[in-house]
């Protein structure tokens, strides 16, 4: 049952610059990579990845506009509406895997790090523009023995993009799979790097979402509904998408070149 429900915010955790986690109790099963539709009455309802999948669930919000601003300003005791979780999440890979998170995408992949119960089978690469946007590093270290960090401006860890760092890592170590979430441009280059090293990947995509549950078609990329057929797709599926990194749809369904 994914139906509409209202939850009370238990805890508000500032994670970094403009990034806030909201925790709330919700008795539904959510898998890493799935998302909720989150309603702020009078404002909007927007998709947010599940950043904590336990009984006390969480979403981690980066403030970019009206809805995310309203969410970031909530206090403990406030209420939000929830639908979902929706979508196909990350599948637990066989063998060793590398989890890559870029920016707010880190929130979506962290539960995937934790789904491995062996700190040696999962390595992690976290990247952001600067140190203040690196989130969940400690959470990652609790679940993995190898956590790599990069910043575009060099304020923390590897100086450069997370994709460049992953390229380095893949040169030295071999993985059965890469799991990733981040800006589409990052995913585009990451997919190239994965192909170069011959590693299969699962990547979580974003598109403009209205219904979130596979009906309205507003999130469609190449005929696939990101909300229902994704948001997680395999690298081989993404390679076949003509619109990936090239185009998206606006709210009227018009194709916009990227």
């Amino acid at each position: 049952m994914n139906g509409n429900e209202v939850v009370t915010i238990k805890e508000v955790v500032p994670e970094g610059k403009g990034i806030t986690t909201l925790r709330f109790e919700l008795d539904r099963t959510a898998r890493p990579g799935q998302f909720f539709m989150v309603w702020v009455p009078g404002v909007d309802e927007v998709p947010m990845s599940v950043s904590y999948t336990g009984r006390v669930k969480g979403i981690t919000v980066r403030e970019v506009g009206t809805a995310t601003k309203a969410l970031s300003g909530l206090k403990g005791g406030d209420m939000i509406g929830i639908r979902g979780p929706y979508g196909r999440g990350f599948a637990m890979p066989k063998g060793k895997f590398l989890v890559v998170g870029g920016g707010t995408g880190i929130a979506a992949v962290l539960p995937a790090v934790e789904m491995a119960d062996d700190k040696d089978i999962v390595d992690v690469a976290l990247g952001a523009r600067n140190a203040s946007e690196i989130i969940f590093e400690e959470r990652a270290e609790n679940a993995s023995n190898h956590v790599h960090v990069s910043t575009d401006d060099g304020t923390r860890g590897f100086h450069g993009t997370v994709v460049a760092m992953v390229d380095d890592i893949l040169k030295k170590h071999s993985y059965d799979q890469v799991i990733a979430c981040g800006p589409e441009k990052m995913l585009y280059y990451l997919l190239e790097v994965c192909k170069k090293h011959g590693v299969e990947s699962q990547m979580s995509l974003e598109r403009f979402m209205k219904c979130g549950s596979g009906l309205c078609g507003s999130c469609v990329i190449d005929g696939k509904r990101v909300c229902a057929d994704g948001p997680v797709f395999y690298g081989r599926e993404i390679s076949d998408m003509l619109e990936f990194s090239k185009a998206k749809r606006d709210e009227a369904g018009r194709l916009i070149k990227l």
Partner: protein
Amino acid sequence: MNRLKVELAGLELSNPTMLASGMMGETGMSLVEAARNGAGAVVTKSVGMEPRTGYINPTLVEHDDYYINAMGLPNPGIADYGEEMASAIKGGVPIFGSIFAASVSDFAHLAGKMEDYGASAVELNLSCPHAKGYGMEMGIDPDIVANIVKEVKGSVSVPVFAKLTPNTHRLLDVAEAVQRADGDGIVAINTLKAIAISVEFRRPILSNVYGGLSGPAVKPIGLRAVYDLYDRVDIPIIGVGGVETWKDAMEYIMAGASAVQVGSAVGRHGLGVFGEICNGMDSYLEENGAEMMDLVGVAHERK
């Protein structure tokens, strides 16, 4: 031999399942996906004269047995939709171009465009319960509907279907008007006007307040509409509302539908639903030594 084959208004469908209007049909490639997954025909999102972004979220309420939606007819507008139709055609199944408009002449214009783009039929959305000035407001008046159908018939050569609203006691009068105006078929039903209220927030959930009820909850109403229509008009009927399983589909066929459209189930169960419905119906037909068309309306024989 293909037992599932149906014929309606001169169109041949390899099976009677269709993707309902509004289901992902904003983009051409989604229609191709539906066809690949087994839909015998597909209906586009309802397209209007100008691009529309639709209502802001929440636009959907989800419940165990129904959805309430108020998307607000988002669509890229008829000019841009040509590109989508160009890809949609690769699906290889008949495409019904769904259109909505506020005037008779706009309906005629949109229908003509859909035919130009390669639509095999036109579906007139006379029944959207939540968009002001469009849909249901005109779809409850037999004279207005007759006018629209007549005008559209005059401007296209493909069959014209009218999609009707169940939010009125005049459904049958409207259907007769469609038939009188030479309409080629009826599609029933669109969603029922509904609302949802959040107790915690003490307000309606949908940003538009009003939305349309769909899914399993409306099947008994859709079946009633089709059953009544079959007694009242001679043109073919396409049944819509709560179809999820082969039995649901067969109920509509037996009530008098020549084909069924599948909407909400695409969200609730995924696109695999077309294949499952077809397999189920095929087994039933095989066991009973029947063909699809033999069963249209059989429930009327014994009351």
